């Protein structure tokens, strides 16, 4: 019991994932600044933002909404992100939990933050938040099928195993899954799915800042918004970690392998940041077409290739 609480709260759960995610968030902002020929914020900027929101600012409750649901939605989103983070990071750090089939649990837990954003936005009683919530719902409907097919491709590739531990060990004994044609196709599709899950720029219609002024987060202030920021930090760490686990050979925690593990995570975040900085926001209809038609075709081609052994 104490061990499980330690896993959830300290390592690799809330504290570790939050701190690492905050550092990755700084990395994202710094790279964005360098791309635009700016200097960028200091390293501790995400921590300043978080503690300012948590400790200094006032939390305002909606008058025409439901305050209880409005305040519990960020708590649920932090819970979902941390829980999926624990399930992803335990196999990556080589700690066996003895739980088979965790890949499907991770897939369902990763949707909890998006669903709690929608619930919180609809409970705030703001029309722009409702617009953002409906867009987030359509976005989930479009990327979730592609993401499920990517997970199915990974399961097919390592011989019908639902366990993240055995997926990582299969790759470490043989070659990483990205080293084949189908692996490259799966990597492309999963990077775009993660871009949509994190609501980064080509797919940031739910919180379009210039258009519907932060959308789903428009009414959040103070400590509630700090929890949402924490969720975003954690998601920015665990989703690249998930890609690393399923396609890029996982972590090797000895000698030079530690450096490679860090570089893999930074490389995936760098890729996401560069996509975010070089593309405009698309309309929700274009995003749905992109995922439901093109990305699904790519993943289905990958599945056929896997079936023939490529």
């Amino acid at each position: 019991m104490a061990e499980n609480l330690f896993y959830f709260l300290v390592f690799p759960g809330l504290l570790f994932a939050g701190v690492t995610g905050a550092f990755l968030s700084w990395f994202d902002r710094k790279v964005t600044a360098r791309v635009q020929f700016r200097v960028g914020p200091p390293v501790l900027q995400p921590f300043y933002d978080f503690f300012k929101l948590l400790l200094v600012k006032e939390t305002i409750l909606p008058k025409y909404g439901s305050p209880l649901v409005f305040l519990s939605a960020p708590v649920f989103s932090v819970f979902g992100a941390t829980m999926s983070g624990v399930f992803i990071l335990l196999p990556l750090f080589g700690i066996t939990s003895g739980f088979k089939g965790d890949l499907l649990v991770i897939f369902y837990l990763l949707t909890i933050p998006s669903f709690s954003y929608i619930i919180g936005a609809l409970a705030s009683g703001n029309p722009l938040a409702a617009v953002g919530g409906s867009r987030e719902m359509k976005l989930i409907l479009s990327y979730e099928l592609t993401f499920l097919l990517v997970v199915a491709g990974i399961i097919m590739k390592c011989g019908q195993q639902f366990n993240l531990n055995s997926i990582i060990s299969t790759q470490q004994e043989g070659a990483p899954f990205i080293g084949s044609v189908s692996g490259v196709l799966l990597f492309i599709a999963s990077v775009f799915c993660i871009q949509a899950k994190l609501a980064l720029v080509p797919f940031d219609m739910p919180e379009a800042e210039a258009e519907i002024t932060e959308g789903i987060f428009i009414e959040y202030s103070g400590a509630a918004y700090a929890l949402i920021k924490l969720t975003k930090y954690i998601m920015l760490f665990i989703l690249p970690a998930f890609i690393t686990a399923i396609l890029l050979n996982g972590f090797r925690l000895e000698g030079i392998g530690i450096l490679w593990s860090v570089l893999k995570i930074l490389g995936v975040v760098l890729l996401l940041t560069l996509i975010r900085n070089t593309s405009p926001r698309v309309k929700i209809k274009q995003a749905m077409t992109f995922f439901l038609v093109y990305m699904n075709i790519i993943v289905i081609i990958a599945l056929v290739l896997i079936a023939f052994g490529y």
Partner: protein
Amino acid sequence: MGFKNYCFKKSLWVFHFGGASCNNCDIEILDCLTPRHDLERFGILLVGSIRHADVLLVNGSINMHDKERLIEIYKQAPKPILVVAIGACGCTGGIFAESYAFAGPVDKIIPVNAYIPGCPPKPEAIIAGIVKLVENS
């Protein structure tokens, strides 16, 4: 108190309220966020919603219509909020001070923490004003 205040000073998020402005001050405010001046090195971000803001920038002359909206925006902001009046119109009324539609400079309507005069103020002047605001808050 010291830690809280330090975090607050290091991460000021700015919401921009434009009154009946001629748009010169708006352009100069946006200049501060461009590569040449880059206010993000001090942690200053432009946010879209007043609920996330720590600083309320007000520019332009405030007329009868703007007055109600400015008061409403100020009430919607989570406290503590700092208010900065930018430009001659925001500080004193400028050339519109005698107009029949003029509802008084910003400090007659809501409490103001810093004034940055100029028509329009240069980005350097805006940065100097923000630095003074951070040092004295």
